Each structure stands twice: as structure tokens, then as C-alpha cells.
């Protein structure tokens, strides 16, 4: 069993906003910054579009981690969508706790279109942290 745990490859969903973080993810590619293959990116127009249902459904369907990325505070293409996501973030973490899912599995970060290196570093770091947490506890039930 020990060995199986060492090979745990988490599945992480990353939601990227069209204007900043998705472009940052593209820049990581153009710059050839390598990172682990565990993350699947979903493009949304704005982090403000992130309906709590999307996030809770992702965990229900077995995501080991969910990463939401958006424009830096003050830089939102839609003025304030990222602030709205940030407001939801607090209560979502609380809800996750009640559901028996470690709140650290949900992460919110700001990535600009110019921060390819930061994006790659974030994916490395998130993958590592989720590996340490182990599989989504809902998967066992």
C-alpha cells in the first residue's frame, strides 16, 4: 500500500480566466516552462463566472484539487469579477470543511498574462501540496 501511495497522481482542475491567467498559462507554454501533467485547464471568461456549483461538482466527481485563477486585484478585465470570486472563496472553503474535504484542496491565485513563470511554479506547488494531502476523501465513499 505504501508503494501505491507514493505513485498517487492527483487530478487537479484549474479554471483560468480568458484575459489574464489563461494567457499566463499560454505564456508558460511559449516559454517552455515545464510543470507536472496533473492539471486540466478549463477556460472561463472571468473568475467571477465561477459558480460555487462548478467547484462543488468538481469535488463530487472526484477532483483531488481545484485551482481557480484570475487577474490580479484591480486588473480584472471585467472590473470586479475577481473580487466576487474572492468573496465566494471564503465560504466555499468553509463548506468544503463541513463536507469533510480539506479546504486546502481549493486554491485561488492571481496570475497576469505576463506571469508564465509564476503559472508554472503555481502548478508545481499545487501538484506537490495535493500529492501530500492524498486522494479526495469523497472518492473512498
Amino acid at each position, binding site marked *: 500500500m505504501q508503494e501505491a501511495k507514493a505513485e498517487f497522481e492527483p487530478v487537479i482542475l484549474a479554471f483560468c480566466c480568458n484575459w489574464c491567467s489563461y494567457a499566463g498559462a499560454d505564456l508558460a*507554454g511559449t516559454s517552455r516552462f515545464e510543470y507536472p501533467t496533473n492539471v486540466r485547464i478549463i477556460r472561463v471568461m472571468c473568475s467571477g463566472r465561477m459558480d*460555487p456549483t462548478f467547484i462543488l461538482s468538481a469535488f463530487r466527481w472526484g477532483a483531488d484539487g481545484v485551482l481557480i485563477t484570475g487577474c490580479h486585484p484591480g486588473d480584472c*478585465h471585467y472590473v470586479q469579477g475577481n473580487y466576487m470570486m474572492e468573496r*465566494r472563496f471564503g465560504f466555499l472553503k468553509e463548506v468544503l470543511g463541513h463536507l469533510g474535504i480539506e479546504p486546502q484542496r481549493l486554491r485561488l491565485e492571481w496570475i497576469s498574462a505576463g506571469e508564465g513563470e509564476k503559472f508554472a511554479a503555481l502548478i508545481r506547488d499545487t501538484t506537490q501540496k495535493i500529492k501530500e494531502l492524498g486522494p479526495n476523501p469523497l472518492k473512498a465513499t
Partner: protein
Amino acid sequence: MGEEEPRVGVFICQCGVNIGGVVNVQSVVKYAKTLPNVAYAEDNIYTCSEAGLASIKKATKEHRLNRVVVASCTPRTHEPLFRSACREAGLNHYLFEMANIREQCSWVHAHQAEKATKKAKDIVRMAVARASWLNPQEEPELDIKDVALVIGGGIAGMTTALTLANQGFKVYLAEKEPQLGGNIRTLHKLYPTMQDSADLLDPTINAVNANRNIETLTSTMVSDVKGYVGNFKVTLAKEAEKREVEVGVIIVACGAMNYTPPKGLYQYGVLPNIVTQLEMDGLLKNGKIKKPPERVVMIQCVGARKGEIRAVDLAGFPKSDTARLLAKILKAKKEEGWPYCSKICCMNAIKNAILIKDKFPETDVIILYGDVRVYKEYEDFYSMARESQVKFVKHIEEVTPEIMQGPEGKLTVTAYDALSGQEIALPCDWVVLSTPLIPHKEEVLLARMLKVPISSDGFLMEAHVKLRPVDTQMDGIFLAGAASGPKDVPESIVSAKAAAARAATLMANKKMRTEALTSVVDEEQCIGCGLCEEICAYGAHYLEDGKSHTIAALCRGCGACAAECPRRAIGMQHYTDDQVLAQIKAGLVEEA
């Protein structure tokens, strides 16, 4: 799902070796054929090539496809091309979906071929799942006001304004200084022609002043920007006096400024006769250097290009010196903050060196450099300097040279010679620092108002560095001149004309279709709470008869209202809950 049974066609691009060299494309094609709703799958060497696009059209007809997925590069560059192929095949282009397996897969997993192939399959599966839920959309049409605002009255701004005005468009030209001219106003001669800057500047300013389509607003700053492409409302402030202008396009030509070292760095502002190239240009212009100097030392890349330490530069040095050298390099990196090459400084130094040599042939002029970057015809300019006995000495640029003053007032520059690995001391009368062009401090504020991102170098960022060099991410906002990075005069003029052409294309069409990504209210679910009206940054929601309504032309499609609505009564076209959830589920559950 969509109204008719989805028949998805999947086209997987090899992108030469860009994708095919990492991802096993054949096995992704084979996998795609097993996915629900997939009626057809193939691979292409380049899906974006004429043959690739023709293949999409052919397969759409032959296999009666009603959804198309292309797995290739990023939609940010290629979605418009594939969408138009779909239109040509008779398919509404909202029935197209892209799977990014290059920027977000093969390029970031170059050494993990097997895992990258698995990830590519997952990405394709997610795209197919989303595609199955796509619906055709009608795009709303916007009116484009044929009036332009140009921010910045330097050579780039003036050229843009003139180019647009000569095509018959009304232009507001806002300049923060009391007069037009920008950086060139402070220059003496322009390289490589050595003409007086006034020869270029004066006719341009006169042409701007004489043009009836241009309204020049000096001492004016932008204080607020509202609206969107075709319909911007910009507040311009001249001290306390404010006025609002309505424009269809905005061209940012705010330029860059010359970096002035802080007091003490390179002894600047502490010892006499230490000046920047710009200041030397001024001294030469005004004939302020009377006595022929014995020697002038110019130092390149002051405040710029202090990047990583290169082992090759340390190789020539005795081991005992390495620690001392490393400490100095780290100090320089900390103190000299601009990481990029400013591109104009080499030519600038050569220009001033030649001017000094012309005036004082006996003066020894030494240029201390790390790299000399004299591209295209400037190579001849460099040779010209060599022929006039200007000396180029390669030093270790990562180490800030030390400058001291001797008892008789003479300066001595001490640097590390890169070829001999020895310390060299150069007594001289003048030290000239070649400093980079850096972004204006106000650029950050401007960027925020315009919602244009800033690159890691601090300049405004182009939509794509190669494919869309004068566009920004914001429709209707364009970049001219040094606003997007250091440029010399000819490059500024080229980019200004390019930006004017891009802006004119929009204005000449008078109308533009925008993405149909708008919110739609389900009136049966809506309880008229007004939350959407309250949070919408664009005023796109209003309440009437106890129900919320969307003004499609104002909605920018962010989807915040859809996420906030307590009744889930608001849907986002093309990013419906069903579409996003299908993509999420497919990312996590294989048998979606």
C-alpha cells in the same frame, strides 16, 4: 444537449513536431473515435494550413458534422481562423470548440511524452463533452464611433494622429506636457543619419497643428475610461478642468522615459562630469563642453540587463577573486533593476561617441560594453565609429564599474576587462552612462483604466508579440511607439502607422459584431431581487415589471451575474452551466 443529435468531428494537429514530437497524436485520434458523440476524427500535420482547413470543410460535409473540435494550439491565437473555416462549411461558428494541447500540453511537458499523451486525451475528451452542449448563436452588432483618441503626443502619437486624420477621421490628441514632441524634443541628433531632431519634429508638429481633423489637447491626462470598443467615454483632465470625449478607438502612444540613476549609483549626482547619454546629447547640442577632453568613458547597460551570472564571464578570473566578484555582481543586480535590453542605447552611445570625435578628434573615446547590439544597418554605424578610432572594450557588465575622483579632479573608472580577466583603470574627464528607456510611472494607472495588461518588463502588453504586435487584449485599444517597449524613431513610426491602420479598419466599417457571450434571464425563475443590476459593472441589467432584463449590447459576458443569481435564473450564452459542468465532469470521469 443541443437541439439535434451532436455529431462531433475532431481534428488533431501535429503542429509539425511542436505537438507531434511529444504527444502520440495517432493514439489520441484513435481514442477520440471512441468518445461519445464523435462521428469523425483525423490528424493533420498543420490543421491551420490551407490543407487542414479544407479537410475540416470536407469532413463536415461528408460526415454531416454539426460540431467541430480542433485540438491544437491556444484559442487566443487560432480560434478566429478555425471559426471562419466552420462558417465556410455552413456551420455556425459557436459550434466550434478548441482543445489546447500545445501551449498547455506538449510545450510544457516536452520530457513527459507518455503522460502528455494521456493529458492530451483528457483535454480532447473535455472539449468533446463541452462541444456536445454547444448551441448556435447570433452575434449582436455594435456601432463604432469614427472618432479616435491618441494618448501621447510624441513622434508615435503624432504619426498615428496624422495617419488617421488624413483618412478623414476626427482625432483627439492628448499630451500630458504643455507641448507636443515627446522624447525627441530633448534630443540633439538622431542616429544613424545624424540629422537634427528638429528636422523631423518641426514639420510633424506643424502638420498636426495644421490638420483640421486633429484636436490637440496639451497638459492633458486621461483620468477615467468607461465603455467598450466603438463606444468609449474618456474623461480628460487639464489640471482641475475635466471634459468627456466619446471615441470609438483608443491608441496608446504614451512612450517611455530615459532612466536616471539614483544618486550615488555609478557616483551619479555625487561626482562632477558623470552624465547620462541623454544629458551628454544636451551638452553637445548646447556646446557646453568647451575644453577638449583627454578621454571620455561611456558605460553601457547602466541599470539594464543585470540578469543571471554567466559562468563564461567568470572563467578567466583567479579563483581567489571569485567570491569578491560574486558579491559585486549580486549588489549590481539588486541596485540596477531593469532586466531587459533597451535596444537603443548602443546606437545612442555610438552616436554621441562620433559627435565627440567629430568635435574633438584628439579625445580618446572608450565604450565599456558587455554586448554591442547593432542590428540591421546599424552595423555600418558601428564600423563608422571603429574607423573614427572609438575604442570598444568588453568588460564584465554584471559588475558595476567603480568611479573615483583623483586629487586633481580627474575621474578614474575601474572595471573588469572581460578578455584579460584583469582589473583596468581608465583615467578620464567625462563618464557617460548609457541608461535604458523605462516605462512612465503613470503607465500603471493608464493600464488599469484601459484594462490592458502590463508585461514583466513594465510596459503595456501586446495581444500577441508576434501575431498582433499593435493590438491589445482589449478590442478597440491599440499600442503605438515605445508604450509597448523601447523603440527608436523609425520603429515608433512603423508601429504608429500600423496602429492607425488597425484602428481605421474598425472605424471604416462603422459596425462590428461582438461575441454572443451575453447573459440571458429566465423570467420564470427570476424573482426580481435586483442583485444582478447591483453587481453588473456595465449596467447591462435593469429591472422592469419585477423581472431582470439584459441589454445585450452592454453585456461583456463575464458571467458574474450568472454565478451570483440566488435563483440560478441567469444563463450565460456559450458558457452555460451545462457546458461548463460537462467539461468539468469529462475532466474527472472517463466514461462521461
